[in-house]
């Protein structure tokens, strides 16, 4: 009787361990499936034309002969909007992160960090409708004309707002890991605090800070909802910042849901491109985090 109970308990323990392993397998299956499907379907679409041609019109292959086309306008649009968003969000976010990490002992600064945290949790679609509403209000107030409401600039603004709190928080986290003794050494030499912050703290933590900025940019590359709501999609390369503009994620949405084979194929090609870039940046970030850890002696702190 007693023995039976002990055996049952032991087997239950084994069973639960097995179930936990099963959970890992369940989580890895969709990841593997997403990667596999992207590679198999996307690789067919990627060739020289893929990067250089304009987006093809929808086409039914059983009725007409179809243009394969390429993703150039979407690639160009994504690069433009990401470029503008990053040029604004990375420096501003980094400065904010430096502030949060260096003055984090103040109560006010702690609540500022709290709200930056809250902002990282805002759904990106809310950012999209906010930017639309803001640009519409500004246009109606006469600040600029209505062509700016749905525009490359509006899309960039939305992406910048998504990136800002992420860059700020990753910078903050990275710099808080820099050992205080380094800064103290600088201060003891009589160097002013702002110089110490820039030359000692920021330069020690720079790999992690740059990695955080890269991750935020990668996240913005895949953001769809904010761009969908703030830009006009087009099949041609963008001409100016207040006109229609295509982008990779909106292409994936429009072409992927349309059902026309030539467009679906491009959607998978764009997916492979985006997933590949994300994967690459995530791995680089992982490796860089290891490098930073060993350089600053953070081994146990992470």
């Amino acid at each position, binding site marked *: 009787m007693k023995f039976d109970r002990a055996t049952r308990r032991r087997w239950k323990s084994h069973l639960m361990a097995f179930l936990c392993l099963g959970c*890992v397998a369940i989580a890895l299956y969709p990841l593997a499936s997403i990667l596999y499907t992207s590679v198999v379907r996307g690789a067919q679409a990627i060739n020289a034309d893929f990067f250089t041609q304009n987006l093809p019109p929808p086409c039914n292959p059983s009725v007409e002969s179809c243009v394969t086309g390429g993703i150039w306008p979407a690639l160009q649009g994504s690069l433009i909007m990401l470029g503008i968003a990053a040029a604004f969000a990375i420096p501003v976010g980094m400065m904010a992160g430096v502030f949060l990490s260096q003055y984090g002992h103040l109560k006010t600064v702690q609540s500022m960090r709290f709200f930056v945290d809250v902002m990282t949790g805002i759904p990106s*679609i809310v950012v999209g409708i906010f930017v639309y509403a803001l640009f519409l209000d500004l246009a109606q107030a006469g600040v600029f004309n209505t062509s700016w409401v749905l525009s490359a600039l509006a899309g960039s603004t939305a992406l910048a707002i998504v990136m800002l709190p992420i860059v700020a928080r990753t910078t903050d986290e990275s710099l808080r890991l820099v050992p*205080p003794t380094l800064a103290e050494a600088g201060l003891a030499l009589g160097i002013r605090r702002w110089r110490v912050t820039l030359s000692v703290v920021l330069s020690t933590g720079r790999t992690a800070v740059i990695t955080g900025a890269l991750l935020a940019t990668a996240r913005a590359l895949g953001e769809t909802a904010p761009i969908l709501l703030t830009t006009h999609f087009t099949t041609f390369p963008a001409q100016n910042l207040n006109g229609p503009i295509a982008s990779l994620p909106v292409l994936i949405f429009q072409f992927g849901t349309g059902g026309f084979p030539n467009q679906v194929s491009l959607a998978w090609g764009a997916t492979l491109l985006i997933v590949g870039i994300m994967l690459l940046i995530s791995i680089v970030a992982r490796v860089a985090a290891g490098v930073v850890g060993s350089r600053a002696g953070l081994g146990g702190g992470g």
Partner: protein
Amino acid sequence: MESPGPIAQGTAAPAPQRDASGRALGDNLFLGITGATAAFINLTLLLIIVILADDSLPTLRVFGLPFLWGTSWVPPNGITPQLYGALPFIYGTLVTSALALLIGVPISIGIAIFLVELSPGWLREPLGFVVELLAAVPSVVYGLWGIFVLVPFMGSTVDPALGSALGWTPLFSGSSQGYNMLTAGVILAIMIIPTVSSITRDALKSVPQSQREAALSLGATNWEATRVSVLTYARTGIFGAIILGLGRATGETMAVTMTIGNGNFIHTSLLSSAQSIASFIANNFAEAGYLERSALLELGLVLLGISILTNVVARVLFRSLTGAGEEAGS
């Protein structure tokens, strides 16, 4: 956010005290500029709240609070007056998020237990990294994968099986070729796994080794030790992780838009198509006229409220943990 950073502890002296003379100028300037950027981010949050609230006023004036439980959405059509009610979309969001938690949370906790309590040391970091890669995949890619892989699978295999076994209950009647709340819930479950499992992992890691040893020394099996001393000890952190997962699930847009079937109605069956708040905004914002756009902005305000609430609750929970002398990753 609670415990001052290591820098702060070491070099907390404010600049002016160190340099009473003009040398403090550089420090003050630096403080001012970086502080202004941080304040700018906070002001953006405030501006988002103000603009969304202000632009939902037209709908609030016309429909008032009943907007939240109205069931019809009638844009201008030249015949009947405009009418906006949000209940079908709130319902869609609630059901899909609940499904996401129901499926995603046990899996996430299982993963965390495996990584912290069971996994061999060399496997721990790489495996944790791979699970977190799920968070790097953009929502629209989940959506595309959903359309081409998950929806056909659910529509041809899972839904018919559920229908024939449980079709007599109102939860699993009918069918919609895989584009339904169940499919959207499954995708959301996958998407919250990295968030919930990584925070749960931090919570489990923070449980003192002595807790496990105490249980084991009383003769508990590994699982009993995990359940009694580890999971119980870490429950506040796990609860915070679930709340953050909920926040992520409610606001997720593209993957849901592409798989939920976009039906503007309330059906009890999980195999029925529906709309979430986010998917409805994404589908209708472009064509909306003045009053309808205001109604959609009010829906956005609801989403914003949910996300702020979940974030604040989760972070207050984490704060109570660190206050008690534990360590919870954020």
